[in-house]
């Protein structure tokens, strides 16, 4: 890079804060410094900062065949790298970003099965209680953990009404480049923010779509013309523990 070109860089518009990058969405670029040595840089997404114009959400059809939820869980494990072999499993401490929950009405015997993951609340208690601000909500409603400033106090896990957060209790293996994880920090469903920012659907949604199921619908709840908006205006939907007023972004029907 020449002096001239360096001088023309408008540094005032460059925001190097990790958090803002996470909040604002980002695209990765890899610069080769020497053969075999690369520098991975992150630059502001072409689409600019995330705004509240969008409100990403999901609609889950709890009447779908139970088997599809296993597909969703497996897709999440594969995408985010949190799954473990059965031989290696510690069920009480292993993270689960999404899980299949079975419910039964003890009075009537009626049953349902549904996936539960971070509900991406509009008023997330995990964000309220986090002392360092590591738990955060993007303007578009996606709730994330900044693992660089998470101190592992687990107060967010105490506060989450949905038990949707996991603490990394041991060394992690098989990490994905787009999803760094760390022992001693807290993690949860990111709504596949790395895919969403590239215009793709979350991995669980895509896996179901590939299997011919539309049991999890993903989209912009603020866009009246989106499929999800049309669906939530057509069906009466529920949100888990709606009484708490945390305004989850994940809707269910058929519970």
């Amino acid at each position, binding site marked *: 890079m020449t002096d001239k070109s360096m001088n023309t860089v408008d540094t005032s518009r460059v925001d190097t804060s990790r958090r803002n990058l996470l909040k604002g969405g980002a695209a990765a670029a890899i610069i080769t410094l020497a053969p075999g040595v690369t520098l991975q840089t992150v630059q502001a997404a072409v689409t600019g900062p995330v705004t509240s114009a969008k409100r990403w959400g999901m609609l889950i059809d709890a009447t779908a065949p139970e088997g599809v939820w296993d597909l969703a869980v497996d897709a999440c494990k594969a995408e985010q790298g949190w799954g473990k072999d059965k031989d290696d499993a*510690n*069920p*009480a*401490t*292993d*993270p*689960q970003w999404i*899980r*299949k*929950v*079975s*419910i*039964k*009405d*003890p009075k009537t015997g009626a049953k349902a099965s549904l996936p*539960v993951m971070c509900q991406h609340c509009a008023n997330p*208690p995990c*964000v*309220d*209680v*986090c*002392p*360092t*601000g590591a738990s955060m909500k993007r303007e578009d409603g996606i709730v994330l953990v900044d693992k660089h*400033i*998470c*101190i*592992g*106090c*687990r*107060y967010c*896990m*105490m*506060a*989450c*009404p*949905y*038990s949707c*957060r*996991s*603490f*990394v*209790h*041991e*060394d992690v293996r098989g990490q994905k480049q787009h999803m760094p994880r*760390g*022992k*001693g*920090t*807290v993690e949860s469903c990111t709504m596949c923010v790395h895919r969403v920012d590239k215009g793709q659907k979350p991995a669980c949604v895509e896996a179901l779509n590939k299997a011919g199921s539309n049991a999890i619908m993903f989209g912009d709840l603020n866009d009246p013309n989106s499929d999800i908006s049309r669906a939530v205006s057509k069906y009466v939907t529920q949100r*888990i*523990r709606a009484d*708490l007023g945390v305004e989850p972004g994940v809707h269910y029907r058929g*519970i």
Partner: protein
Amino acid sequence: MAVDTTVYKEIEGTGGDYYSLVGWLGVMIAAGLGSTYYMEHHGHVVTGMSNAVVWGTPHVFAVFLIVAASGALNIASISSVFGKYHYKPLARLSAITALALLAGGLMVLVLDLGRPDRLIVAMTKYNFKSIFAWNIYLYTGFFVIVLTYLWMMMERRMVPHSKKAGLFAFVWRLALTTGTGSIFGFLVARPGYDAAIMAPLFIAMSFAFGLAFFIILVSVTYKSSGRPLGDLILFKMRNLLGIFIAAAFYFTVVQHLTNLYAAEHSGVEAFILMDGGIYTFLFWVVQIGLGTVFPMALLFNPATGRTCQGIVVASLLVIVGGLAQMYVIIIGGQAFPMQLFPGMEVSSSFFDGVVHAYAPSLPEVLLGLSGIAMTLMIVTVAIKYLPLLPTSLSDAKVDPHHASDKA
């Protein structure tokens, strides 16, 4: 008000007993640090904690010590703020005990973090909506204020101002315990918490736990240093402890009665009070029986309440009961399943709908005990190098009128 003629003097601290005590406390602190290394190296998988019971035994000890810290300051507050001059000679020791308890509690809390190496992050990045972040200010503020208060009491020129500092410290300590109780009170999702009464309950608990710890400390220190400790001050602290135990019991009763009245909380109440296994045992037998009723009986039975041993045993029981109460609140509150779908039977691979298992692991217990050891170490060293202890707490020294009455 009587002129303060108290003579404060450092303890000698040269005998084998003193160094042996310091040595043992050092070993306990080292064991706690070793536990932390073990837990951080392997991850929290080696503890009894899980994704359901995320706060375990270290938090029981840490919160107990932090709560007791503000309570231990009461003796100083009573003399400075409420003008009860009998307690004045113990004000310095009260302040240093409060600081030591807080330091011990915070040490445990920090060393249990998933990333204790990021403490600097907690000190530099704040989310001001978080009660945890407020507490960081309340804790550090407590150190600054109580240290200033202690300095004002010890620096002759500043003594006239110590009353104002004492008042400020008293208000601050109420805020601090409110903050600690609100860590639980603000958790809307968990039926075992989510109640405003957590703040006053914790304040009442702090009065009892802090004073119980302080009574033991004073009794043992005076006995082992051969300084006179009269019945007058001891009996005054005994009566005060009785009132504080009753206050903590009162708030506990109101907490549970309120929950019992609300149908939505009947599940968690049945769990704690009737069929919670270890939590029910700890509540009724240890917290209420051993930690409330039995010490009250000891304190106010003439045969035991008029002896130093009886009062010390009662104080020890208050501490045991207090640790049990913390265990029931912190771990019992998490062991009871989260109500994702109230009224429904729920199951999953993530242990939804079932009572969560928890058993303390050795590293957790050692880390917790090291907090107590750190507290005692600070006090042990401080009273050797600083004039904190009155040379005598005999009845005549504590209350000259008492002496003249007798004469």
